């Protein structure tokens, strides 16, 4: 191929839950391939397996993580395009020192807002992002923010109750 002035990245820097990771691009262990999705890198390279991959097609919302303040689908994002981004996954919510759950996580427990729990990390990340921006969001806003999430166990009603409980108590922006 003709020489270009284009940037073919050789390393990717990601800040995942406050920890900076420098990953080289390549096909060896602990390296990132250009065709790796962010979900793959989080789960397989970094071992942060709280993020779940459901459909791997961008339709179910299970793989949602917060990137630079916005919820995005990690299964439809190339890791190599996330250079310099700050990513929060479900592991980044609980207090690492005390193990105390984030108020949204605690509310999900209190409301039994899941059965199998596979979709829960994605739903909690989308809820977290909503409450970060709108700490006292109303029910309609919660439903809209979570409209891209499927729960095969149909715990949607409890999920909305759990998020609304946090919004009403004003604890969401912690």
């Amino acid at each position, binding site marked *: *191929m*003709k020489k*270009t*002035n*284009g*940037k*073919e*990245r050789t390393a990717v820097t990601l800040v995942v839950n406050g920890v900076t990771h420098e990953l080289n691009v390549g*096909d060896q262990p602990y390296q990132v*391939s*250009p*065709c790796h*999705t962010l979900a793959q890198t989080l789960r397989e390279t970094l071992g942060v397996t709280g993020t779940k991959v459901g459909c*791997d*097609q*961008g*339709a179910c*919302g299970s793989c*949602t993580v917060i990137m630079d303040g*916005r*919820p*995005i*689908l990690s*299964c*439809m*994002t*190339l890791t*190599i*395009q996330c250079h310099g981004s700050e990513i929060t996954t479900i592991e980044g919510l609980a207090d690492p020192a005390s193990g105390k759950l984030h108020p949204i996580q605690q509310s999900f427990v209190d409301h039994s807002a899941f059965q199998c729990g596979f979709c829960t990390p994605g739903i909690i990340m*989308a809820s977290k992002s909503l409450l970060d921006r709108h700490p006292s969001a109303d029910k309609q806003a919660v439903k*809209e*923010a979570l*409209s*891209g*999430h499927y729960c095969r166990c149909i715990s949607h009603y409890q999920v909305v109750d759990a998020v609304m409980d946090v919004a009403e108590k004003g604890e969401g922006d912690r």
Partner: protein
Amino acid sequence: MKLFKHFDAESIDHVLEMVTATNGKTALMAGGTDLMGVLKSELLAAYPEVVINLKTIAGLDTIKMVDQECRIGATTRLTDIAASEPIQTTFPALAAAAASVGSPELRNMGTIGGNLCQDTRCWYYRYPDKMGGRIPCYRKGKGPCHAIRGENRYHAILGGKKCYAVCPSDLAIALGALDARVKVVGPTAEQMMPILDFFNVLGTVLKPDELVTEIRIPLPSKTAVQIFLKNRVRDAVDFAVVSVAVMVDQEEGVCRDARIILGAVAPTPYRAFAAEAAINGKSLNETHVAAAAEAAVKDAKPLSQNAYKIDITKALIHRALLSS
């Protein structure tokens, strides 16, 4: 996904240079929400050697009001379009269309240029290679359209001939009603084309070495009313079953310059000229609106399972015009 090389684009010229250098074996990625699915499913026999990230081009994601038009950069995210104040006040149909796409997460990733250039959702066309082999069809250049004799409840009722897959873009429908133009840049020339000319029966008129860089929308008349309505199975994530965008100006109770664009009923955004003719110069009352709705679908030739789309189309046109 199979391996490819990845480049961050620095400028549009740089993209054009790379596309030429790789002989077109290049995929351009903006939000990636459509392309990632295409690559994962390996639905086309040709797999790109190089993927170029357009999001790194500075200044391509801005919304600007210039002279008598609004200019939207191709990599502007749908969330930003739906939330933009100038868009909400001046182009409410576009804001509504952008807000109706996919899920909040997809709108945080997807861009306006990508929404126009996305590939169709026809389930034969999209069938993944890893599940027993991709399905060759007319759109892929080999074989017949399987929707004609197969499962076709979401396929075209208007304008289908050799391929009955519908245009999946919502923004194209709203932009059609707003008479927008698309800036297409290639290695030798750049052109501004009306949005409806941008689409053809098999997708878009883009050549492998061209890309969309900007969308320009003229300011509408102050008295014009815009409506965008979208019917779908579930009120989130789903693509449109039928969508309608209407822009209509009224003077002394008489309708003029109506533009009625239908989405997801034809292989391209479909301008309902007959419906426009039925309503122009008349008042928007029940009788005239019903006549316009009827005129819009008089050429419809439904397949075995999609005649219901005719009723939905009529109902949406009816609703859109009566609320204008």
